[in-house]
């Protein structure tokens, strides 16, 4: 099991050998990492040429490679993990709307910026109370996790809600689950502004996209800076922007950009550390994890019991319905179910994120519980049920007094197992913007550029929740064994 890991690590080391420019020239390829899920207009899969890519950053990467006399090659990578992947050597440069922030400047090398963006605040058209950042104090504002907007919201006294995708925050804003969305203008223009129910409040800040490199690749940065300058001055850069509809007069600053400006932009750096404040956030996230897990289990247990009894003792049609439920919820990814429940049914079912998380996981786990109980009930000999009937009990009483208590004893280890699995599966609800323990860990890890300490803290908190539970279950089993 360790061998492939070692091989991967060694190959990364091998890839890093040699300074940046020399390495790129030797291999003849400039590898760049981006997330195709980020979508228009950055970099995305070409619908007309499956496997191919299009977007303004694709064109930029191609132009830069041309200037360097090499080819460009795209590497798919989750946006929020572009920097860690860059650091471990997965590609030469990260080029995907990466904003220059003091935290990132302290961590990676940046080229001169290639695009000036504005942070655009949007709200519902019928909500006149949102007039600017001050009006949002204590209210829910959505944005991409670990983006510049995210950093800006942290200091603004609002309740920042992190998202993975660019479409979802606007859906939630329409649904009233958010009070406002703060995103880069390029994103707002494509995903927010076409929605008739939303309005632009205004631009509340600006920032720059730049190309990120590993420290040590200064030579490659110099060549890229020079190449960017050439492309900008020749008019090619703004031509690319125009093709993608993201050009505006302020982009002229990119053309006239100087090295002195680059130095000034990159001079403020910040190296965030894991502090007591972070620990407090981790504890809060643990409470969310526990709340979602317990809530889902409280829903799953009675529903699962009803499903298993329907299959075993109900009329044929009800049994078939229960079977269909179990197969449907067990046979499709819970991630998909959460998405459908929260975003897909948003128009019909108005749920806040935590309720949707509890409902989604509860409905899913009910399918598993149903099978655990069914196994439990089937393990009770038929004679026990008949003996109860022979004493004049009706079916319900016989199940309640005789079959279920014995089935419970058999089902208990499986239930404990499921609950602990649920505790960890609850991390999936971050896709519907619930910040639970794993999400908190990811945000912090990306922020402090280390996965080790946040990871260990996260693991310790999960264990602190699950271990007492296993102990409790074991004691309960021992008590049931005695009678």
């Amino acid at each position, binding site marked *: 099991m360790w061998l492939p890991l070692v091989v991967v690590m060694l190959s990364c080391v091998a890839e890093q050998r040699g300074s940046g420019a020399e390495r790129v020239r030797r291999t003849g390829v400039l590898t760049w990492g981006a997330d195709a899920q980020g979508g228009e207009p950055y970099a995305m899969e070409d619908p007309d040429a499956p496997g191919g890519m299009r977007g303004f950053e694709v064109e930029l990467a191609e132009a830069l490679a041309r200037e360097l006399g090499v080819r460009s090659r795209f590497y798919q990578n989750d946006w929020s993990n572009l920097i860690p992947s860059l650091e471990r050597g997965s590609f030469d440069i990260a080029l995907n709307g990466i904003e220059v922030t003091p935290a990132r400047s302290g961590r990676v090398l940046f080229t001169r910026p290639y695009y000036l963006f504005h942070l655009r605040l949007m709200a519902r058209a019928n909500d006149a109370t949102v007039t600017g950042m001050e009006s949002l104090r204590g209210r829910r504002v959505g944005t991409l996790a670990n983006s510049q907007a995210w950093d800006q919201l942290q200091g603004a006294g609002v309740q920042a809600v992190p998202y993975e995708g660019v479409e979802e925050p606007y859906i939630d804003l329409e649904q009233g689950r958010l009070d406002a969305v703060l995103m880069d203008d390029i994103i707002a223009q494509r995903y927010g502004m076409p929605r008739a129910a939303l309005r632009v409040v205004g631009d509340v800040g600006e920032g720059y996209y730049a190309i990120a490199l590993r420290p040590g690749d200064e030579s490659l940065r110099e060549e890229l800076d020079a190449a960017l300058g050439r492309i900008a001055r020749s008019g090619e850069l703004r031509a690319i922007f125009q093709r993608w509809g993201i050009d505006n007069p302020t982009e002229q600053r990119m053309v006239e950009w100087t090295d002195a400006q680059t130095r000034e932009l990159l001079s403020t750096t910040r190296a965030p550390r894991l502090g007591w404040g972070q620990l407090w956030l981790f504890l809060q996230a643990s409470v969310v994890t526990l709340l979602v897990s317990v809530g889902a289990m409280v829903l799953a247990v009675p529903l699962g019991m009803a499903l298993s009894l329907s299959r075993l003792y109900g009329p044929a049609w009800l049994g078939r319905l229960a079977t269909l439920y179990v197969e449907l919820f067990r046979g499709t990814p819970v991630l998909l179910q959460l998405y459908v429940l929260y975003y897909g049914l948003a128009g019909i079912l108005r749920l806040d994120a935590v309720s949707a998380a509890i409902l989604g996981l509860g409905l899913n786990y009910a399918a598993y519980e149903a099978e655990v109980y069914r196994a439990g009930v089937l393990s009770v000999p038929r004679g*026990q049920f008949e*003996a109860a009937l*022979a*004493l004049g009990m009706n*079916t319900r009483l*016989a199940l309640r007094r*005789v079959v279920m208590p014995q089935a419970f*004893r058999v089902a208990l280890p499986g239930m404990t197992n499921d609950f602990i699995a649920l505790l960890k599966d609850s991390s999936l609800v971050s896709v519907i913007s619930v910040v639970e323990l794993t999400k908190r860990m990811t945000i912090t890890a990306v922020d402090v550029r280390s996965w080790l300490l946040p990871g260990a803290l996260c693991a310790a908190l999960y264990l602190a929740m699950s271990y007492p539970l296993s102990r409790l279950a074991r004691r309960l089993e021992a008590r049931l064994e005695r009678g």
Partner: protein
Amino acid sequence: MIEVKDLCKRYDGRTVLDGIDATFQTGEVVALVGPSGGGKSTLLRCLNGLEPFDGGSIRIGNDVLEPGRVRAGGGRVCELRRRVGFVFQQWHLFAHRTALGNVIEAPIHVRGLGVKDATELGRALLDKVGLSHREGAYPFELSGGEQQRVAIARALAMEPEALLLDEPTSALDPERVGSLVSLLARLRDDGLTLVAVTHEMRFARELASRVLVLHGGRILEEGPPDQVLDQPRHERTRAFLGLGQVSPPSRVVPSLGLGRTGVAPVFPAASAGE
């Protein structure tokens, strides 16, 4: 009194009961004998509504069971079952309850007795079957004979008019058969109707006032045990009993020590705990 009229039951296209007519009088002890697959156990289970049937009727007091009205856990059948106890071949004691817990479960939850009254009743019944010293034991801690006695006490706790026993001797060694017989004799003397499926001819001879021979889903013959068991009229009965073709009943069947009206058990294990 239990009255069975033209009882028919098919299972998978095979006729298991083929027009049974029988009456079980109050206070009577009836042994159902016959070759395996003859329908004895099925008939017994029908009497308690555990087995649905396809034709005929069963009248118990004023209640009548008819096809289509027998549902495993239906209300009417439940009512009837309280009056007819059933002791399974494998006893089926509730595995999660103690001996006393087994006995008081139904009195509390079906008859609605208070816990205190039910416990009093349960202790008296365990005493009656000679197991008062085992009331805290779980089924897996009890021997076969002890489990059977708990099962009998459990059935008696519903104060039934009749008790149905499925092969009560099959899991007992001969010594314990004796103590079971003496226990059942006492219940009979208390006025309880007993119907038992048995392969143990000595059991039938010692305890039964009447023997029914079932074969192929029909009653082949019936009568007092000495007549049916010693001088069967039907050839099939003779074969089943292992008697010769032409036969005076010359075989000496060893007595279990109980006369037809006998009271005093002579078995060493009869009243001692097992």
